[in-house]
């Protein structure tokens, strides 16, 4: 009997000539939580796609319990009880929780779906995760966090021996993540092995047993978690010593750019009033679902406020009925869902960057593309966007670089206020630092920046002032960010 459930040996995989994986090893012991770490593009997902049969490796071998196995389709992987919980939530919104859990894996009786059994088993699986909800309701009624748990329950329906969790906590709040970790520990005790992909190193240090670190498609090291510090991990991931994002104290003007008075949206937030100063970075903290994103969606005109609320720009009362109104007043918005709202995947970097600015560079009714190209090249250089040229389709860039294009989009437009919702979600350590730097530069140029983030570290590193939102209400502000800790923010939220 082998020491490992899964041994992946010397895995290589190329995509049209580019080596995505080069001779990578990964061993997983029974009943362990194994963190798979690396920056975006390091090859973690490719590795897992090979293990789950979605991609065919060019070279290498996979052993299960010491015996060589062939996994050449997702079906093979399921049959061997290797199950992936993907990062993107792929639940069907209009279908019940129970049905989603057993989708493609239906409980049947005489070739018909056995609903009674489906519901009973769904409840049982969710209980493993400590979730008790009505499984007959539609998935769209659930928060992102609960949807994540439903995805995991779906994986559990295949009674996995190896469960792969790809960034399971990226949409969860700390408390929800803790619930998830408790469930993971419980599964571990029952002998399930888990591969845990995450960008949150604290989670690795507290939850995982061992880790494998990858960089640029290559294996870097495998280590026991207890022998590694956070800095060790970061340095192995980046291949060099990474500078920590440190707080920079900045001077802010006392001119108010934007002011909101008594904004309301039933069910989302109530009686919200605040001011944002020119050149200020306003951090917005709170749990997911606290109403943070909703408030600023309304500010930008994506959703409409109830009529008694008032908004002011530069001291003048304004009506913002749609994003165009907001843009005309000098605002920009970076959505938390980059793929869903942020980019137009089939368009080039140039078009994605210049889309809102075309009106400014047209001559005699036609767009001056020479000017558009110049502006784009300028930002590619300034923001260090990694791409061969401006004509590359934006979908082919890494998340960090896509995000830079979106920030550049608003800079090119010449905005005075930028709302950024989860600006670095799913972005690797290095790119994160670069984006933080960009945010600071923006503010230095007098742009008022709103940073909504679930990562307390990010808020503490960036914000000049923190607004704490809880259950749709502003609970207070933290002015002196330097001496603030995560606990202070939470205390303010829950007081």
């Amino acid at each position: 009997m082998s020491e490992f459930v899964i041994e992946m040996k010397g895995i290589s995989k190329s995509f049209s000539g580019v080596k995505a994986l080069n001779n990578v090893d990964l061993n997983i012991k029974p009943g362990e939580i194994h963190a798979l770490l690396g920056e975006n593009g390091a090859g973690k997902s490719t590795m897992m796609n090979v293990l789950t049969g979605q991609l065919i490796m060019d070279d290498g071998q996979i052993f299960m319990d010491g015996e060589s196995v062939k996994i050449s389709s997702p079906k093979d992987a399921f049959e061997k009880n290797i199950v992936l919980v993907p990062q993107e939530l792929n639940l069907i919104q209009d279908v019940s929780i129970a049905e989603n859990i057993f989708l493609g894996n239906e409980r049947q009786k005489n070739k018909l779906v056995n609903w009674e059994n489906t519901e009973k088993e769904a409840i049982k699986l969710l209980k493993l995760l400590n979730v008790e909800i009505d499984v007959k309701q539609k998935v769209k009624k659930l928060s992102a966090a609960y949807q994540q748990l439903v995805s995991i329950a779906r994986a559990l329906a295949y009674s996995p021996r190896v469960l792969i969790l790809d960034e399971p906590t990226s949409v969860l709040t700390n408390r929800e993540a803790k619930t998830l970790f408790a469930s993971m520990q419980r599964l571990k005790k029952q002998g399930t092995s888990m591969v845990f992909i995450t960008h949150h190193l604290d989670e690795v240090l507290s939850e995982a047993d061992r880790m494998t670190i990858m960089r640029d498609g290559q294996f870097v090291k495998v280590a026991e978690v207890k022998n590694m510090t956070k800095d060790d991990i970061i340095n192995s991931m980046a291949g060099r010593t990474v500078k920590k994002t440190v707080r920079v104290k900045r001077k802010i003007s006392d001119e108010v750019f934007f002011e909101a008075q008594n904004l309301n949206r039933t069910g989302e937030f109530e009686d919200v009033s605040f001011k944002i100063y020119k050149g200020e970075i306003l951090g917005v903290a709170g749990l997911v679902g606290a109403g943070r994103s909703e408030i600023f969606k309304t500010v930008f005109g994506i959703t409409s406020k109830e009529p008694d609320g008032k908004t002011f720009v530069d001291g003048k009362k304004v009506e913002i009925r749609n994003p165009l109104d907001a843009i005309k007043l000098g605002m920009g918005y970076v959505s938390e869902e980059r793929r869903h709202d942020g980019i137009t995947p089939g368009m080039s970097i140039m078009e994605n960057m210049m889309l809102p600015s075309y009106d400014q560079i047209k001559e005699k009714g036609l767009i001056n593309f020479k000017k558009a190209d110049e502006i784009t090249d300028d930002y590619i250089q300034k923001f260090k966007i990694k791409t061969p040229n401006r004509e590359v389709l934006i979908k082919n860039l890494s998340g960090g670089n896509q995000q830079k294009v979106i920030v550049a989009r608003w800079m090119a437009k010449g905005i005075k206020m930028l709302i950024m919702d989860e600006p670095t979600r799913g972005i690797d350590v290095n790119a994160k630092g670069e984006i933080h730097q960009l945010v600071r530069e923006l503010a230095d140029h007098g742009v008022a920046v709103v940073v909504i983030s679930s990562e307390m570290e990010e808020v503490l590193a960036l914000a000049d002032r923190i607004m704490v939102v809880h259950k749709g209400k502003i609970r207070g502000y933290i002015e002196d960010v330097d001496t603030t800790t995560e606990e202070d923010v939470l205390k303010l939220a829950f007081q």
Partner: protein
Amino acid sequence: MNKKTLDFLKSTAGMVLIVTIIIGLAVHLITGNFYTAYNMSTLTRAASFIIIIGFAQTLVLLTGGIDLSVASIGSVCSMISAQLMVNIGMQPYVAIIIACLLGILFGAINGFFVAYIKITPFIVTLATGEIFKGIVYVVTKGMPITGVPDKASELANGFIGGVIPNMVVIMLIICILLTIMLKRTVFGRHVFAIGGNRNCAKIVGIRTERVEMKVYCLSGLLSAIAGVLMTCKLASFQASIGQNWVMPSVTAAVLGGTSMLGGIGGVIGTVIGGLLSSVISVAVTLLRVSSYWETIVTGGVVLIAVVIDAMKENVTIKETLKRKFGIKIHK
């Protein structure tokens, strides 16, 4: 060969163009009368109508919608132009222009329901298409309207310099105008942006409703132009005008590389796609194959074209092919 030409040849439109020329060559080799002046002139004239209707469809497809009413709008406007010229005795050119402009109005009805009431384009245009078709039958009782003035007939049947058919010139002018509009104007880029990602388009401040409205109006205008010119060509209104235009319009657009999901494509591709459809139809005639085969061949070609297109984009299909047959497809 420079990179742009090469890229074009590798695109769907490029491949379709090559296929079109090859079919032509093959038929010419067998029958000896494909690349003749007469055949070319008849073929391109017939193709021009499908292509103009294809333009209408292309614009709507680019926004991620579909317009099933193109044929009926063409038919209604065709009838109106004939009524104005024959029964009211209006000056032909004035009648033609009025009938075409009414196309905008009919398109606006689609646009209103799609853009502002947010009903699925498929349903809206299916319904309005049936209504327009019904109006034609109610008004004409299915009878033709004959006696369209020569001046109008000349417009669609004439030649410039005795060589180039007017119809082809009209089609090419529209093509050039639409290409400039789509590629170089803000409105054109907004059309692509809406089809590419509607949410993103809204956030960057595009008035998605207004753009969509305009696109359906344009589609109505182009459909009307095709219909009215058909009346001119036949020198009479026939209830059958445009009856079979919906599928060819989609075929021309899709063969030309326009995506049914929106955001990708263009009108130059539609010219090529429309030509291929017509070449197939002429080939079937010249080869003395029963004309019943025509739709089978066209359908097959469309399937092959879209499958190849899908394979270029789809990682899963690529992996499956590699797994099963060891085939590698490069982009």
